[in-house]
């Protein structure tokens, strides 16, 4: 179960960073903060409506030299500054625990991009010491597939945000997200994970935080063996895996950057295009199409396992 401590400060490990928060987050807490270096702090505090000297913006967000601001009317405002401080300002009458999902997702991604990270909108599992990533937009079934693979013996690494590290001269590594799975009730039932269910993602949303089924320590990072772009095929089609040519693979990876507009705004800082090029040259990127029917999830797992065994990837 996901049982937050009851007194601040709360300490967590997210995407390889030590996070200390004023407010309890819906994920597994670390022990007392002790002497570990704090990388990022979360605070519930006032956030301005706009930034000065805006360099990039969208309908509801702005970026300047130091900060990223997300404005969700009647929900709250969120500001990430200098890769170190995340400010959470719920709208009047909005409970703070109902807006944490935006701080932990978009807000934390801005912190990571400010620190030069490369992030994919992907879930990830580990098998025999190698990481397999599953990319797709919300609704593509990332969480359900990674939960099912975890039930089938893989270690769970990430739910929907995968942070990649590119060591000098080596292959890309992925560090654990640290956050809980987020699953709809039908997937929880299908995967028989009712005992692991935690709080709702938001009060009015029928999606729940679920404790990951495995808890191995992969904090040093795991080499990425393959990346899959998830699509649904017709229910009359069997699951199928097809490798993408390098240019299509690069385009697909850019499209599946986590909160791509923030990634593009910080692309110079992170060296995004060079890193995508490096990733494509060392790692297979595939299309994985499979039936939507949850009762046929096992066929997808079998197809993946065969692919891993035949390709000698795991």
């Amino acid at each position, binding site marked *: 179960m996901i049982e937050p401590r009851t007194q601040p400060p709360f300490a967590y490990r997210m995407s390889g960073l030590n996070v200390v928060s004023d407010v309890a987050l819906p994920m597994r807490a670390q022990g007392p903060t002790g002497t570990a270096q704090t990388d990022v702090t979360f605070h519930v505090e006032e956030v301005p409506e706009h930034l000065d000297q805006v360099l990039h913006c*969208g*309908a*509801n*967000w702005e970026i300047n030299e130091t900060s990223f601001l*997300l404005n*969700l*009317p*009647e*929900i709250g405002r969120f500001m990430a500054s200098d890769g170190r401080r995340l400010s959470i300002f719920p709208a009047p009458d909005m409970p703070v625990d109902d807006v944490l*999902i*935006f701080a932990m*997702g*978009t807000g934390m991604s801005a912190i990571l991009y400010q620190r030069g990270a490369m992030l994919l909108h992907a879930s990830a599992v580990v098998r025999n010491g190698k990481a397999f990533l599953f990319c797709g*937009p*919300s*609704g*593509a079934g990332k969480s359900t597939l990674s939960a099912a693979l975890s039930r089938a013996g893989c270690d769970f690494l990430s739910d929907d945000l995968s942070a990649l590290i590119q060591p000098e001269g080596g292959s890309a590594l992925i560090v654990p997200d640290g956050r809980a799975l987020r699953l709809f009730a039908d997937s929880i039932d299908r995967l028989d994970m009712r005992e692991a269910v935690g709080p709702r*993602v*938001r009060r*009015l*949303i029928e*999606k729940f935080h679920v404790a990951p089924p495995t808890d191995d320590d992969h904090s040093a990072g795991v080499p990425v063996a393959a990346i899959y772009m998830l699509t*649904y*095929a*017709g*229910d*009359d089609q069997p699951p199928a895996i097809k490798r993408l040519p390098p240019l299509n693979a690069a385009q697909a990876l850019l*499209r599946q950057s986590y*909160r*791509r*507009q*923030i990634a593009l705004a910080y692309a110079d800082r992170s060296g995004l295009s060079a890193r995508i090029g490096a990733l494509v040259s060392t790692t297979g990127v595939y299309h994985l199409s499979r*039936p*939507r029917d949850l009762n046929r999830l096992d066929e997808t797992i079998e197809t993946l396992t065969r692919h891993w065994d035949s390709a000698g990837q795991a």
Partner: protein
Amino acid sequence: MTAVATLPPGLIWLASYPKSGNTWMRVLLANLLAGSDRPKDINNLSEEDPLVSRWRFCDDMLVEPETLDPRELAHLRGSHTRFVAGQLGSAFPCKTHDRFDPALGAPARYALYMIRDPRDVAVSLSHHAGTSVDGAIAQMLDPTAHSHGAMQLRYPLGDWADHVAGWTAQTDVPVEVVRYEDLHGDTSATMSRVIDALSGTATPDEISRAVAHSSLGELQRQEASHGFRERLPGQKRFFRTGRIGEWRDVLTPAQIRTIEAACAPVMERWGYAPFHPGI
């Protein structure tokens, strides 16, 4: 070949109730603006992602739609549309099946509203959604109907008659109404009218070529060889017959009566004579 057909910059809604020719119009416009000597790939029309796409919404707004309640989502969709419409440097024909809502619809420069005989819509919808004809009719008469797919936001659809009346009677956005039957009967003349309405330019040769590249035969050929990514799971084929008046062979008298009882005033307004007048 050089593309010379043009449309002025700005957001253009390609609006319709489902199964009323929206996809055909998108393919026609894509072929016209491409001006190529080959038909566009129906799975790669080089369009911007429509605003109703979940990927597009999350990409632009930086929040997952599934983490928003319906009121929050509607609010942010309005901001999204206003922002995108205000930034456009070229024409963006954007498909929508949303019921007209001024907060969402108004920022567009123009709207093309595609309308089709609701009795044929019922037949087509039943094939598309893999439901019975009665199920399709029930959806068409349900004022609370919503729609969504794995790749799209959940959006309000409403019933057929209100959908048509909402888009065609609103005064927020200039609208050109295109009857599917007219597009089917004389595609080139109808497209010429559409381009004029949108203040675009296209020569008769360009229109003829786009029409040939978008024929039902061509679309079916492409779907048979490569599939069509917008086909729903379980649907045998997306580009089916496109036949006018198929309802006469398929619908029962009771089904015809049900549709006409609910839709007759709107049907008559757009030239679809009731089979059972006076019900």
